[in-house]
């Protein structure tokens, strides 16, 4: 187990390094510079600014500086907001995005699994058809459409919930619904399909022959096996949710990372771009790693460590 984790950890570092390099190349490949919008056309000021941010140095040196800033976790100040460092921006924006993302993930996983399981248990019944109708709708409607619909109907017309911002648990409800509907639908469909398959297995029949209660059969024997595919897609789904938060944050005026991220690219604010990209990718890679470990816990046949083979 420790060996496996070490291996995975090294892989993680390599992955992040590759992402960082790609980010650097791409960010420099975009035409323009952070100072394009400055009203001044004085070349001396321009040159001084570039010198201050070390943008006048040759690319390889800049790349090394960039790597250094990643390793030391010090991205320096934002170019556009010189009185704020990238770290401040991250520490202010990320917790909010994280809250939104995790709340969405929890809602999507729990409701998706429950919905899918009941659909499978009532195969071809009303619950099944209802759940699958919901799933098709949920997958088809983009989250930004759902978000605006929710704001219009629930917040504006009915006035039940606040339409925007992020200041109380009540404010979380609409953005989380908007963001979670798609993933919930996907998880529900996946759980249902995999549950239907598991329920025909011999060990389920054997559990029934033992005279166990239906609840125990589902909870103990079926669910764990049926959740394998769900765990598999959870990693990539998390990536989708994280990027989805950018759009949802914009619509609901949530002060998360999304705003800074999009603005920084528009402004060619190099330190902020690299800070947020590397931070996000590191987070994502770490979550995939967690999912892999989780997978090993769910299915003992997946060996995370070298132990004795078949006896």
């Amino acid at each position, binding site marked *: 187990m420790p060996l496996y984790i070490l291996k995975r950890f090294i892989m993680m570092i390599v992955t992040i390094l590759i992402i960082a390099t790609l980010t650097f190349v791409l960010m420099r490949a975009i035409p323009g510079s952070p100072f394009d919008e400055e009203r001044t056309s004085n070349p001396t000021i321009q040159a001084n600014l570039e010198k201050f941010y070390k943008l006048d140095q040759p690319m390889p040196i800049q790349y090394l500086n960039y790597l250094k800033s990643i390793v030391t976790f010090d991205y320096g100040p934002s170019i556009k907001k010189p009185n704020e460092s990238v770290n401040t921006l991250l520490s202010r924006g990320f917790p909010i995005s994280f809250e939104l993302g995790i709340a969405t993930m929890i809602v999507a996983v729990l409701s998706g699994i429950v919905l899918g399981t009941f659909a499978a248990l009532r195969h071809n019944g009303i619950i099944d058809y209802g759940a699958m109708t919901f799933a098709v709708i949920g997958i088809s409607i983009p989250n930004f459409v759902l978000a605006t619909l929710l704001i219009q109907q629930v917040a504006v017309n009915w006035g039940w919930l606040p339409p925007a911002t992020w200041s109380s648990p009540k404010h979380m409800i609409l953005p989380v619904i908007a963001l979670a509907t798609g993933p919930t639908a996907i998880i529900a469909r996946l759980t249902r399909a995999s549950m239907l398959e598991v329920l025909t297995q011999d*060990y389920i029949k054997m559990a029934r*022959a033992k*005279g*166990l209660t239906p609840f125990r059969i589902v909870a103990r024997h079926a669910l*764990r*096996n049926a959740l394998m595919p769900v765990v598999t897609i959870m990693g990539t789904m998390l990536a989708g949710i994280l990027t989805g938060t950018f759009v949802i944050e914009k619509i609901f005026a949530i002060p998360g990372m999304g705003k800074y991220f999009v603005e920084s690219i528009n402004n060619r604010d190099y330190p902020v771009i690299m800070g947020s990209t590397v931070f996000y990718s590191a987070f994502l890679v770490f979550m995939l790693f967690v999912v892999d470990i989780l997978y090993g816990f769910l299915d003992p*046949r997946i060996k995370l460590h070298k132990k004795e083979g078949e006896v």
Partner: protein
Amino acid sequence: MTGHQLAASTSFAEAPATIGGQAGRSTATDENSTSSSRADKEIILSVQNLEVSFKTFGGEVQAIRGVTFDLYKGETLAVVGESGCGKSVTANTIMGLIPQPPGRIRNGQVLFKEKDLTKLSKRALRDIQGVDISMIFQDPMTALNPTLKIGEQLMEGVRTHHKVSKAEARRKAVEMLDLVGISNPEERLGQYPHQFSGGMRQRIVIAIALICEPELLIADEPTTALDVTIQAQILELFAEIQRKTGVAIILITHDLGVVAKIADRIAVMYAGKIIEIGNKREIFYDPQHPYTQGLLNSVPRLDLQEEELQPIDGTPPDLFAPPEGCPFAARCPFAMEVCERVYPASTQLTEQHTVDCWLQDARAKAVFS
């Protein structure tokens, strides 16, 4: 059509024992024990005129069409027949594992201790499943849950039904693993199914089935998925367990070698009906139904080298629309006009031997002799 000897062996692993005359000896003792003790042995399971069908897109399949038999305490009844004849449906119906729908019990009773299992509520049935009646499945590779330790799978039955402490359940589990011949039971409890070989897994499945000390064990092709050497070991295990615990066994199989080895009585099924039933000696030496004879002829025999295998021509009837008369009539070399029109009545040949065939009718006997 006379002169059927004991076609005891189909699998090569058992052949030497058979040729050495051991089978003959064991048959004799079997017969003694069954015939002498039969009168005083109580019936623990009585299946009466059971009919089960399944709804499919193509129509309603009549999987079993009037199965009747009794099972005595402590005996082994083998149910034989080719694929699709209703053996497994019979087993699953007794066990209460027929999903309804699509399955439907159209008629009949399964009487166990004076209770009709087909009429019990699911809750009441659960108190019998795994406690009084247990089942062993065909493929040990899929019958165990891959994500649970075998200890948990063993103990959950006892803990559900007997409300014993964890330590007590554990002690029982160790005892069961010991009984089925698994060494280091304590350590083995913490392992997962993938850490065991096929034969070992079947032993664990048997241990799970027996842990609540059932009176009836239904084994649905318990050796089919195993290789021959393991088959022999598992069959010996069955015999040993029966000796130790006195459990009655219904053995579903299509392997006559298995039957010859451990059965007391044999029921031959064809197209959803039991067409002949009798003790082992009667079925092997004196089969009366042309289908039983065909079945025995289609088994390879080591003691008759020259003879070619004789397959039974044709295929079993379509159970969507089973024939009115004898279902075997279309394949039967002795079929008469009456066979295609009317299903034959049962003829009681001896105390235990019953056959459903028109050849037993006095008028038919006159034609053939």
